[in-house]
């Protein structure tokens, strides 16, 4: 029998598959539905202090080799979101609360509230590429990251994950800053800044013009980031970006990920993707004589 259980520091997961933030996680119902699939955890939509509509439509489109979105961090505000989290029955898996703020104080308030709602871990979104004053705009500065993580660490007792962006000079420096601030894991990667112009109407299609590129095309970028971060830090890494099949999961784990998140994969394969990944990973491990997924973490580093 193959064992798929994995740990992100002391957060135990029955398998390495996690729903990525921003995908089918606006309300309790959809997260409960995903937890009934073979997902060990769900990350909530990124939640801020106040209600935000996000950007106008178009906020989404498919590209030839991936997806492009600029939702713009829509969310009902932390106070309204509590009732959603409380409705989820944790028996089936873990809930990771994603939050975004524009400064240390906002992150402190948000993290305390999220913890009170009962999430099992926090994910600090320091990497949204298309919302002014949030996300990537803060997440490029190692000192800012360090300060935010340090503050959140003092506000809560649950594990803290830091989600980073690939749209930077040196993701390792940022990962180190998060580790030094007390982060329990790094999540990489958020989307890659990209654009699609419609040549008939001569304008970017997204209302926000620039969006975040996700899905199949970005997998090699995600793998590279996870591989590089693994050599820079000691805390676990959660790999995200372009996962659609079991072999992608194995590749991320060999690059150094202890678990993975799946977002756009739901677009390509439907919500069954978690079950598919589980079956494919088990099959591959069985064929290749591996008993425990943990033995594969980081093995591509030699």
């Amino acid at each position: 029998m193959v064992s798929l259980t994995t740990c992100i520091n002391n957060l135990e997961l029955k398998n390495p598959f996690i729903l990525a933030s921003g995908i089918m996680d606006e309300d309790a119902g959809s997260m409960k539905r995903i937890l009934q699939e073979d997902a060990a955890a769900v990350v909530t939509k990124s939640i801020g202090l106040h209600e935000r509509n996000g950007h106008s439509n178009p906020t989404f489109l498919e590209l030839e080799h991936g997806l492009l979105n600029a939702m713009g961090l829509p969310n009902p505000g932390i106070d309204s979101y509590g009732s959603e989290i409380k409705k989820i029955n944790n028996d089936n898996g873990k809930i990771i609360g994603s939050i975004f703020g524009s400064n240390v104080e906002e992150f402190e308030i948000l993290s305390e509230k999220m913890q009170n709602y009962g999430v099992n871990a926090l994910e600090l979104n320091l990497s949204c590429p298309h919302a002014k004053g949030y996300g990537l705009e803060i997440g490029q500065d190692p000192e800012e990251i360090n300060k935010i993580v340090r503050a959140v660490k003092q506000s809560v007792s649950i594990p803290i994950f830091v989600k980073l962006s690939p749209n930077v000079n040196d993701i390792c420096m940022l990962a180190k800053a998060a580790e030094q601030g007390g982060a329990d894991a790094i999540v990489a990667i958020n989307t890659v800044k990209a654009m699609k112009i419609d040549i008939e109407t001569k304008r970017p299609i997204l209302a926000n013009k620039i969006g975040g590129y996700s899905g199949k095309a970005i997998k090699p970028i995600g793998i590279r980031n996870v591989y590089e971060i693994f050599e820079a830090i000691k805390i676990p890494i959660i790999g995200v970006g372009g996962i659609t099949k079991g072999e992608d999961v194995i590749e991320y784990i060999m690059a150094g990920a202890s678990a993975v998140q799946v977002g756009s994969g739901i677009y390509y394969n439907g919500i069954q993707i978690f079950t598919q990944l589980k079956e494919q990973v088990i099959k591959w491990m069985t064929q290749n004589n591996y008993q425990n997924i943990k033995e594969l973490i980081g093995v591509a580093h030699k």
Partner: protein
Amino acid sequence: MNQPEIVKIESIQNETDSIKTITFFYKLETIPGQFFMIWIPGIDEIPMSVSNINNDNKAITFRVVGDATKSLFNLKKHDLIGIRGPYGNGFSFHGNHHLFIGGGTGIAMIAPAVESCLLRDEPVDVILGAKTKDELFFIKRLQKTDANVHIATDDGSKGYKGYTSKLTEKIIKEKQIDTIYTCGPELMMKSIFEICIKNNISLQASLERYMKCAVGICGQCCIGEGLRVCIEGPIFSDKQLLDISDFGVFNRNASGKKKNIQP
């Protein structure tokens, strides 16, 4: 690919003072009950049900309610819009005797469903409802078919005076209706749902929720236990609706915040 395909507006038809039909050339096969995401460049992208299917010509019929629909209303023949889709499940016809109920702009998507159902050669009744006579449309279009067309207005300015739900109760007493198909204000559909449950009639109701991706990932349109109106809907059956506690109670705005559906 789920990317707006740019089409030229082929023709524009005024249905009422505030309702227009726009026809364009769009190849992808589309069934009644499905919808498109309509991109009005520089303005917005909004969901619109298919209101007419004529081989490669498709149409949408809409009422002006805000910015996007106003811009759409002001477009001229040969102006460009972007289309992606069709999305959603569409209607599936069951039983022998069919009753279609369109309320307000809901009539737009009920019309092609009636036309399509008639190909089964089974009896079809239709109720077209609106607040007042001037807001009705597609009456002639449907009267030309073999369907029995009933009309209801709240103020009695045309046809039956009263809600479509009342007229429905009347019709199901007279005829052995197997399935009801409806689109209209959610509270109207809720009343019809209750009638169906009581009378053991199958129901297919077309729900509206705020849409962003329309492909089942952003979670914006989810209702009940994670049903995506853009994928598992917009048409839901009586059985599904029983489990959707939000039905007729609340929807969510662009931020995802719950909004009560006014009583």
